[in-house]
């Protein structure tokens, strides 16, 4: 087929002409047979002509509108979401790149510098051990963001897999998974976290490894709601005609599950994004209670906890305002992005 490559400025009318002209070459010997019906020769409009309908504007086809690119365009139009994204990007830079520009990364204890207010050398002052608060804030950001993302990924993996299995195979599998989810969901989260945190403290797990345990813990506790959501999505998706068609094509379960999962992806992305915010909050709560990430590893939560005295509250605001603001803004930014994604990915909110 000799399709012209120029396509800018072409009109739709021109394409119709082109595509009809191309037709006979495209379809091999295509002569509509003469049909004798019960009523004689069948007169149908345009019998000898090749199909005229493939007359889509060329530009659209040349640049396929994948559901993802459409969503991206919509997301870009949402100012709040873009703002949230930019803030998160800045936060990542601050946490992961920032420490490289700080002279205080070793976190050495310096008795001479205890509780100094913000100054030119220590922009956000120093804490009770004479460490630079700004540097600790950056390092804490690393931990908090990492915990948030890793535990989200974990919960999405577990939740999506179990949800898909439950929704697709139903029956016994569904029962087992969903009852397990019910059990987990029927116990309030904070008591579980406190109990497990206390056990961990008792096991004397060292500070560095504790972060990973916290990630696992938070991720594990978040899967039931995700599994439920995914299951409900799969249950409705599997009844859609295209799944019957996939079934009729004799595709393996693996492929069919992929079809289903791709359709459930938008919801999953939104929930996952919001899940990061939740995980960051959980980590902060846990660390604030002294059960999550423990010093000397900094996290926003345990920085708040370290400043948990009336004197610190009244006289040394540089100790608790920065981590508090960091948690607050990060969570808000993630929620803004999540809401933006929801609007961008959900076709029903087409505006």
């Amino acid at each position, binding site marked *: 087929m000799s399709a012209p490559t120029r396509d800018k400025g072409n009109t739709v009318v021109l394409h119709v002409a082109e595509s009809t002209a191309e037709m006979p070459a495209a379809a091999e010997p295509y002569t509509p047979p003469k049909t004798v019906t019960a009523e004689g020769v069948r007169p149908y409009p345009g019998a000898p002509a090749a*199909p005229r309908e493939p007359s889509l504007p060329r530009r659209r086809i040349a640049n396929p509108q994948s559901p993802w690119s459409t969503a991206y365009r919509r997301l870009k139009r949402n100012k709040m979401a873009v703002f949230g994204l930019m803030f998160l990007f800045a936060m990542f830079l601050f946490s992961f790149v920032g420490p490289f520009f700080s002279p205080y990364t070793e976190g050495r204890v310096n008795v001479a510098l205890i509780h100094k207010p913000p100054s030119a050398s220590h922009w956000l002052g120093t804490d009770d051990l004479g460490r630079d608060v700004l540097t600790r804030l950056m390092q804490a950001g690393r931990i908090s963001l990492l915990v948030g993302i890793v535990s989200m990924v974990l919960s999405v993996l577990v939740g999506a897999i179990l949800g898909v299995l439950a929704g697709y195979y139903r029956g016994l599998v569904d029962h087992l998974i969903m009852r397990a989810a019910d059990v987990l969901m029927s116990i309030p989260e904070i008591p579980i976290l406190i109990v497990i945190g206390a056990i961990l403290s008792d096991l004397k797990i060292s500070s560095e490894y504790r972060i990973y345990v916290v990630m696992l813990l938070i991720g594990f506790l978040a899967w039931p709601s995700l599994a439920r959501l995914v299951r409900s999505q799969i249950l409705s998706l599997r009844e859609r005609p295209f799944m019957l068609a996939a079934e*009729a094509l004799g595709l393996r379960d693996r492929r069919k599950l992929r079809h289903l999962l791709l359709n459930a992806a938008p919801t999953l992305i939104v929930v996952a994004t919001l899940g990061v915010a939740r995980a960051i909050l959980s980590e902060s709560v846990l660390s604030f209670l002294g059960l999550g990430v423990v010093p000397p590893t900094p996290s926003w939560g345990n920085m708040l906890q370290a400043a948990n005295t009336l004197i610190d509250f009244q006289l040394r605001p540089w100790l608790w305002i920065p981590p508090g603001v960091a948690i607050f803004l990060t969570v808000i930014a993630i929620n803004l992005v999540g809401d933006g994604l929801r609007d961008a990915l959900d076709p029903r909110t087409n505006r």
Partner: protein
Amino acid sequence: MPRTIVEFVNLHTYFDTADGVVKAVNGVSFRIREGETVALVGESGCGKSVTAMSLMGLLENTTGRIVDGEIRFDGKNTVNMSRAELRRIRGKDVSMIFQEPMSSLNPVLTIGEQMAEPMIEHLHMSRKEAHAKAVELIRMVGIPRAEAIARSYPHELSGGMLQRIMIAIALCCKPKLLIADEPTTALDVTVQAQILDLLRELKRQLEMAILLITHDLGVVAEMADSVIVMYCGKVIEQAPVLSLFQHPRHPYTQGLLKARPSIGRRTERLYSIPGQVPSPIGLGNSCYFSDRCDRCMDVCLAQQPPLRAVDDRHSVACWLYEEGIRDVRSAARG
């Protein structure tokens, strides 16, 4: 005589519902020979689609079950095949196109991907080969700019194009039998004609058999070699297309043909068969059509008519054509 591709033998497919058992397919027997187009006709809910779904083994996710009978495909009974065996047949030896092309394609995968999948699955092609073949198939069904189409998503194409794509997908593994479940119902008339031409042309090229499920007698006349008329889960008449259109025997078939508009005959109102299709639950022993039939006899209310051959290839299930009964009727008249 050409080889038989598929043979339905006394198929019974029932659905369990809250109100009772629905006998969707109730003793259906017919065969499709190599290269033959068989049309399955009847109104909504008469069991046409369920017959096809039974063959494909697609009842698994429904409450339906095959209670009795056999479906011999290529000599093997598909009713007691394992899931894996059925899966290997589906899409390869038998494939299916559906009524709604717009919703039968996955909205988040490109056309090319969806076309390639069954070929990777059944013909063990590599992804690249399958994509190349997909583009070739898109050309074969008469869509220009095939490469661009393969990269696009279902929502970017029109209904007619999507149905062509569906046909291309169905034909990608060169099936022996194509089941077309109301392939043109959702399309407008001009596109419908194109799709039917395409199907006929491809059938000739690929030498496959077609099981055409439709309620459109115009489509039947254009496409079919033989016709099977179903009513309430039973075959009531079976004949070569010409014989059926020229000499319909069953009062229901006669009614259907009368109810069809035709060029050159202008009437105030089209004929319609009186009454309604009976509820599929708890059907009695009478002929299912008896309460709508204007030639109903006593025997029709007492006993169901069996499917009998009235001539060489034409059979009908109606007491009107039963030798002994005819005497009874004339005796009653006289």
